[in-house]
């Protein structure tokens, strides 16, 4: 693919270059998916806190934002990175999330066995994160900006020994899922023709 056909390096400078129609369609589709999943992720977070009991879900509840192995929250400083790098970070985060969401679902199956909707939504979230990550990687590959070399295996999901820490960990994972899907939507919007600069 020639640089005239599409380039992520400087989308502003190349805004006058029209992307291939199918690539454009793919970008729009992936952006729409990210937009939809952002809403789902917010709903999942709300549903999750409801099932953990107070103080989860109370206004002002602020458990420690502890680091989760293999995945950090989107950092404000990443906004200054080139778009391809941001999208690669998005794809990596989306690849790391599914095993974490699966681990949260398994633990919630013990803690809240009579919450089938929550369990189903956690399962859906893992699948949707995988799908969105794959879609982002497809876009990157089409633009010649895919990550070089094999992607490292996502680390095994973290677990917590006690029930309360497990609840907090699940909240953290659901929050990270929402944050990264939202970040992905924002990054993709810069690729959508006619979207924000």
């Amino acid at each position, binding site marked *: 693919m020639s640089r005239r056909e599409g380039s992520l390096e400087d989308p502003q400078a190349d805004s006058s270059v029209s992307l291939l129609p199918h690539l454009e369609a793919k970008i729009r589709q992936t952006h729409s998916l990210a937009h939809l999943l952002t809403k789902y992720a917010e709903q999942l977070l709300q549903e999750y806190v409801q099932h953990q*009991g*107070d103080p989860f879900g109370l206004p002002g509840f602020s458990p420690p934002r502890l680091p989760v192995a293999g995945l950090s929250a989107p950092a404000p400083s990443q906004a200054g990175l080139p778009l391809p790098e941001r999208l690669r970070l998005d794809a990596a985060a989306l690849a790391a999330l599914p095993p974490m969401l699966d681990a949260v679902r398994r633990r919630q199956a013990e803690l809240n066995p*009579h919450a089938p909707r929550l369990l189903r939504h956690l399962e859906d979230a893992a699948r949707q994160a995988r799908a969105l990550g794959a879609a982002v990687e497809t876009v990157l590959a089409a633009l010649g900006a895919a990550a070089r070399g094999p992607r490292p295996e996502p680390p095994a*999901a*973290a*677990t917590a020994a006690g029930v309360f*820490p497990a609840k907090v960990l699940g909240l953290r994972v659901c929050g990270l899922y929402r944050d990264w899907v939202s970040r992905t939507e924002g990054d993709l919007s810069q690729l959508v023709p006619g979207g924000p600069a």
Partner: protein
Amino acid sequence: MPAGSPGPAAQSARRPPPLLPLLLLCVLGAPRAGSGAHTAVISPQDPTLLIGSSLQATCSVHGDPPGATAEGLYWTLNGRRLAPELSRVLNASTLALALANLNGSRQQSGDNLVCHARDGSILAGSCLYVGLPPEKPFNISCWSKNMKDLTCRWTPGAHGETFLHTNYSLKYKLRSGGQKGPSCDNTCEEYHTVGPHSCHIPKDLALFTPYEIWVEATNRLGSARSDVLTLDILDVVTTDPPPDVHVSRVGGLEDQLSVRWVSPPALKDFLFQAKYQIRYRVEDSVDWKVVDDVSNQTSCRLAGLKPGTVYFVQVRCNPFGIYGSKKAGIWSEWSHPTAASTPRSERPGLGGGACEPRGGEPSSGPVRRELKQFLGWLKKHAYCSNLSFRLYDQWRAWMQKSHKTRNQVGRRDPSRTATCAGLACVTMCSCVPAVSF
């Protein structure tokens, strides 16, 4: 007192799950800007307690720099701050808590007991499980659909409220018989098929051999087992509702409908007697009338119905006596409602229109009384238009005839004999001649 084998009621910590190589969270830490990180541990972790019991807990702080103090720490339970008098400082780094007469857990994932730093940040948490051991499940009932499967449901003991997640497991085995030795316990796997306390065994069931069936209830505080129900699959057979239910008019008879159906095909190859029930209701009513003991026939005639009225009809089947079983059998579900309407009453000379009393009539007392009665009767029974003396005379003739008939109780109209007699299914068979003009 709970039945079965009660588990330990004292405080007990959950056995931690296997740890993965990248275990990260054992305790919570609350980094504070510029002052190092403090963490804490609550003991006991995730205890299980009986309702009404007491809890002694501690929150021990340690951090960097060392010498973290217990001063200023406080507790919350499910987000509500606990009264200071329930806490006391045990030593420089440990705050104790004493709770008495605990209520049942608010959520099945456990009540959240949290230790906070002075600034409100969360240092540690522990989940309390307060409840009751399960009581003996009872009232097990089972049925087999067409001898292919078995579905059972039961009532949880203590009306189900233990405040803890309670697992119910339906077990079954062939009743052990002598030389064959003991049989293995099997566990049902498909739960909640017909309600929260039910299970479905889809296959691999033996006939002509009794099964023993029971339910085991287990939670963190203990377990309980129901009485054993012994049954043969053949004694609890039910089937699908009769298919192809048709409801139709009986010629021009305005108070009758004919109901026909087909016997359930799934059991057609088995020798059994079937009995049926029919129920019907008027379209805008919720009250069903049941016709019982429609034994082993696939048609019935309903009589004594209102003319010009839509009726909904349903049929169900009981395949009792299958393979010679002596048991009562189990009724199927009702068939889908089938609707039909009785013919509208045909009365010559009548049509739509308002009924108005004749004017200018003699105002003699008896005539006025009769006219009033006549008009009352018209409202109920006739469609009025073009009133005439002829109509009035016809009514008088009917009144006389009707009076004679009321004095002949039990005498049947020969033209209705075939309809009324021999119909085990008729509950409203009217043998009084219909009003005719």
